[in-house]
């Protein structure tokens, strides 16, 4: 019997397993599936774990967790943007909401250069959470690490790996959210040199923090999210100056520390694919959300980097099981040959996906995904 872990490792290492591994990024869907509220899913450790277990059994399991099956609400608290959460600012059973506004100011760039990003963040979090104590940040980080560690170990004992132990965004994405997308865009034109210098400082600190988390919690990989940093947003010249150097630095240090680099890439990265080709072979996983041409990605990254994706939100919510199954077959036909493919959702599996559509996705992978 091939274990899920063996299957996933083979794909990551660009080999051919017994069948295409099934790796949905299943998070909030578990709340809907198991019938707990979003508040419970985000903050109640036991109910959250219970809902993940119910979903796991109900759907017949899969081959790896993307995020550790632990409550996400505490992680949201440690993101440097205001997030309204169910049961707090929002009614108990709705999705959490990210409120992007320019909380970071232009003066803060200088401050980051003066004191470093980690020290800056400590102050910055008091702006977001005026009620926090000086020790809160550290305590929260430890809490998350311990929750991740326990959740990862629980499934690891059944040979089911978790991909993500440490979490980071590209510095471009992180600062863009703290400044707000529009203000940050103006900064790129009005003070490019300053932004470039700041991003360099931030890159180092973000990488350190993510690696510390991964070493403490376990997991196969460190997550690097690129959400608004592809050429769907920035020009190639801006990409080369403000985005790519950070990704190269992060990937290199993640690999050195013994992890895979998990590039979680939202929106359209088709134009950026050639850059990915220059990253170290067999050490990275790239996850597309349905907007990048994943078939084109296979052409460019074949035998170089494991690809994951990309059953998208619209199909899973409004499509039929037949349509979902057809799309999964198309993915398997196009991406499985030669190995190095994980069948997954486009970004997070849509929380309001139809149950029968998710079942169709999973069944198709298990049956049609066999390498023979």
């Amino acid at each position: 019997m091939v274990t899920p872990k063996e299957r996933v490792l083979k794909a990551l290492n660009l080999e051919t397993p017994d069948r295409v591994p099934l790796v949905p990024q299943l998070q909030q869907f578990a709340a809907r599936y198991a019938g707990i509220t979003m508040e419970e899913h985000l903050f109640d450790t036991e109910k959250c774990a219970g809902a993940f277990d119910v979903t796991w059994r109900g759907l017949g399991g899969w081959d790896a967790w993307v995020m550790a099956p632990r409550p996400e609400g505490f992680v949201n608290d440690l993101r440097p943007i205001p997030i309204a959460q169910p049961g707090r600012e929002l009614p108990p059973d709705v999705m959490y909401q990210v409120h992007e506004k320019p909380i970071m100011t232009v003066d803060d760039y200088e401050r980051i250069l003066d004191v470093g990003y980690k020290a800056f963040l400590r102050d910055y979090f008091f702006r977001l959470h005026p009620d926090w104590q000086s020790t809160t940040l550290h305590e929260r980080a430890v809490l998350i690490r311990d929750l991740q560690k326990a959740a990862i170990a629980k499934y690891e004992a059944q040979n089911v790996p978790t991909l993500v132990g440490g979490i980071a965004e590209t510095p471009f994405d992180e600062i863009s959210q703290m400044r707000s997308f529009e203000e940050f865009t103006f900064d790129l034109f009005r003070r490019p040199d300053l932004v470039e210098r700041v991003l360099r400082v931030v890159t180092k600190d973000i990488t350190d923090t993510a690696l510390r988390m991964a070493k403490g919690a376990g997991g196969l990989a460190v997550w690097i999210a690129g959400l608004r940093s592809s050429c769907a947003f920035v020009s190639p010249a801006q990409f080369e100056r403000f985005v790519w150097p950070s990704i190269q630095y992060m990937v290199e240090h993640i690999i050195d520390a013994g992890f895979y680099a998990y590039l979680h890439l939202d929106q359209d990265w088709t134009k950026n694919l050639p850059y990915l080709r220059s990253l170290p072979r067999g050490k990275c996983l790239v996850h597309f959300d349905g907007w990048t041409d994943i078939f084109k990605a296979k052409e460019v990254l074949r035998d170089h980097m494991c690809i994951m994706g990309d059953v998208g939100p619209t199909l899973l919510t409004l499509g039929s099981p037949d349509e979902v199954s057809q799309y999964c077959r198309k993915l398997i036909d196009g991406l499985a040959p030669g190995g190095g493919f994980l069948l997954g959702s486009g970004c997070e599996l849509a929380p309001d996906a139809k149950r029968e559509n998710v079942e169709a996705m999973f069944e198709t992978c298990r049956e049609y995904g066999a390498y023979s």
Partner: protein
Amino acid sequence: MADTSEQLTRAILELREEEVLQLVRQRLAAGEAPLEIIAALRQGVAEVGQKFEKGEYFLTELIMAGKIFKEAMVDLEPALERSRQQSQALGTVVIGTVKGDLHDIGKNIVIIMLRSAGFLVHDLGIDVPPQTFVNKVREVNADLLGLSGLLTVSFNPMKETVAAMHAAGLRERCRIMIGGGPTDERVRAYTGADYVGQDAGQAVRLAKAALGVA
């Protein structure tokens, strides 16, 4: 005059913020009609939009052009009022991101493009309930309603907004277009909207088609 108009158009096309603002002030001081200055600015943003559609310019560049246009308008609007000139809009559009959804990057791009094409656009922002859309459409007598949404859970509020337009008796005289990442023909059919647009360029083409303007 043609020369400075061209200079202004070029400055915005090349995203030279300071230069645009300086030129606008100079020309206002020289007593030039604000509408002519605006025409030159619009031309610049429209050319940025064309380059964007051809893949020669990128989103950040479009946003910067929109910002420069907006800043120039701060100087131009009082002058417009003084001269009692009215710019002739191609039509009136009400737009917003539907209830529960806070994404607005794409919607704001659509607005930049619609405005530079000559539409009068009322932006209701994000997280907009159906009734707020209906009220605004009625208040400004809009020709077209644009609904943006990037979440799958936004499909229902879109549908509810279309239904509310119906209930208010506005459905006949105001067309409805939807857009935003995950929307497609399937979502259009589900919500009962008239059109779905994949990008900002298409939003402008749809708006023109809906209103029967070239």
